[in-house]
């Protein structure tokens, strides 16, 4: 039980990216035993690359997603407290929201839970909506140095999601939702929404969300997927690690403010900016840090962030190794030979509409031109080859030529004349199509709910195996 005097609300977060790896049950149960007022988690990330959004898939296995949803739903219904999930299924696309809604129904049926109200919202933005905005003179503004969105880039985009602020969550809570499955959302707003709705200051509510969204990444020693609890009052936010071996320290909590972000002071969400410049951190008890001083600056005009992904082409992968030191020294010539053979068949990449990428492991595959040691290759190299083209057949031929022709590279003084590289497999493999991030932009809206379609539904008390299945 919470022993804190005065009106506070307590938020339990068991996972910083639900589905990416399963929550750890023991610390979650410790958190549940303290009877929190909300159970919440973010389930999305743009770290996973543009593929899942473009192809409308998840990187997380269904079993892991269901595992976490089941633990959270059973605990929330047992305690009679709201459960909120944001950015369903990695990308927060409509199909991912539908999938989580269906999982919630199945879990409720399997456990014969008493009826409850389920709220959900969609975040996908039709291209036609943005086209109308753009042709009527409303710029879709680029972030992080990108220019305004062009119609050409819009055409090259397969799927767009808008990143929600607190607004759809507050509206669904107002409509009586006890469980919420959100489309794409800023991580912090999942937590900020119920706190703001309960009357806590926006300054502290957004900070609460910021500090909780990655669960135990705000604690030390480093351990992911463990539960943490945030407590908000009218004056402060306190954050406590639930794993007995972890502590939320001034360093771990303050350090978390900078995680995954360009700058430790500012966090932008639809509707404003959280300013952490004057945050004050103090160790409250052994496992709890207390924070005061964050500021939220409301935006005059709400701008909503958009993420978009467009398909580049079908993709194949090949691999070759090199051990001969003479060949290692001249590996760029070897690659150049293979590239030339592809060029003779398909023309230059720009004209032929294909891409051919070489990553030289053992030299500079990971850092490329940023690697200060790229002139000191190892005694053996692994060369990963990726070919991308409009059709699978062409991508296969590009990649096979680009891989196999390294075997025939013509180096003047090579001793080994039976083959220039080592193949672990004399074949190339089809992998997921290549996508790219086409949108990292914002659009101005008149109504912060206008990009999000809200629904509520009753999850009825159906017997397992009944009509809901």
């Amino acid at each position, binding site marked *: 039980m919470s022993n804190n005097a005065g009106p506070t609300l307590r938020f339990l977060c068991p996972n910083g990216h639900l589905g990416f790896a399963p929550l750890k049950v023991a610390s979650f149960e410790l958190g549940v035993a303290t009877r929190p007022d909300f159970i919440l988690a973010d389930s999305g990330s743009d*770290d996973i690359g543009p593929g899942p959004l473009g192809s409308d898939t998840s990187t997380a296995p269904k079993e892991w997603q269901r595992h976490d949803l089941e633990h959270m739903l059973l605990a929330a219904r047992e305690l009679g407290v709201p459960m909120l999930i944001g950015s369903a299924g990695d990308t927060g696309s409509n199909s991912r929201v539908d999938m989580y809604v269906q999982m919630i129904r199945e879990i409720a049926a399997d456990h014969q839970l008493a009826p409850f109200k389920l709220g959900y919202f969609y975040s996908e933005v039709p291209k036609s909506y943005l086209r109308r905005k753009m042709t009527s003179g409303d710029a879709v503004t680029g972030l992080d140095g990108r220019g305004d969105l062009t119609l050409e880039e819009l055409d090259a985009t397969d799927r767009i999601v808008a990143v929600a602020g607190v607004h759809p969550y507050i509206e669904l809570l107002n409509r009586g939702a006890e469980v919420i499955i959100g489309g794409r959302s800023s991580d912090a707003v999942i937590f900020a929404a119920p706190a703001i709705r309960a009357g806590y200051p926006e300054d502290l509510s957004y900070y609460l969300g910021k500090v909780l969204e990655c669960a135990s990444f705000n604690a030390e020693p480093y351990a992911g997927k463990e539960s943490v609890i945030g407590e908000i009052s009218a004056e402060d936010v306190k954050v406590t690690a639930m794993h007995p071996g972890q502590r939320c320290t001034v*360093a771990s909590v303050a350090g978390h403010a900078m995680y*995954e972000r360009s700058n430790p002071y500012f966090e932008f969400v639809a509707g404003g900016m959280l300013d952490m410049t004057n945050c004050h951190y103090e160790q409250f008890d052994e496992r709890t840090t207390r924070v005061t001083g964050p500021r939220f600056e409301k935006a005059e005009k709400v701008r909503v962030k958009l993420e978009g992904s467009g398909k580049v082409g079908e993709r194949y992968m090949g691999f070759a190794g090199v051990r001969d030191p003479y060949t290692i020294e001249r590996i760029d010539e070897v690659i150049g030979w293979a590239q030339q053979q592809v060029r003779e068949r398909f023309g230059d990449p720009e004209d032929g509409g294909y891409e051919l990428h070489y990553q030289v492991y053992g030299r500079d595959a*990971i850092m*490329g031109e940023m690697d*200060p040691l790229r002139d000191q290759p190892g005694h053996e190299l692994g060369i990963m080859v990726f070919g991308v083209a409009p059709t699978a057949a062409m991508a296969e031929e590009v990649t096979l030529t680009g891989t196999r022709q390294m075997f025939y590279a013509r180096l003047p003084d090579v001793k080994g004349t039976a083959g220039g590289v080592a193949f672990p497999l004399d074949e190339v493999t089809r992998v997921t199509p*290549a*996508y790219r*991030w086409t949108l990292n932009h914002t659009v101005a809206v008149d109504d912060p709910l206008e990009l999000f379609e809200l629904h509520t539904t009753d999850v009825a008390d159906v017997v397992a195996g009944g009509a809901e299945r």
Partner: protein
Amino acid sequence: MSSKKLSELAKTVRSKNAGVDRITFDILFRDRGNYELVKNSGVLSRASVAALFNIDASRITDFVEYDPAYAIKFTILRLRPSGSAGDADIFGAQQYAPLLDVEVPVA
């Protein structure tokens, strides 16, 4: 004057995506002493990290000395967005290694 490697003085040296177009680097220290030592040494600056990573200084979008966390943080603009074909580090998680061997003068 002798020197120590940054990896001996820092608790954490890491890199990670900050959105899809940037990679951010965090160097965190356990205590104020080592933090101030490195901060005041001047070995980490926009110019020095641009040189270390062999990039134009204009690609460094942020460089912050963040006292509350005893941390130095900077952010680099990617040449292409994360996860584009040919990107070998879609999380940006293995870009920090050259920082480990930065020599810091100690009294």
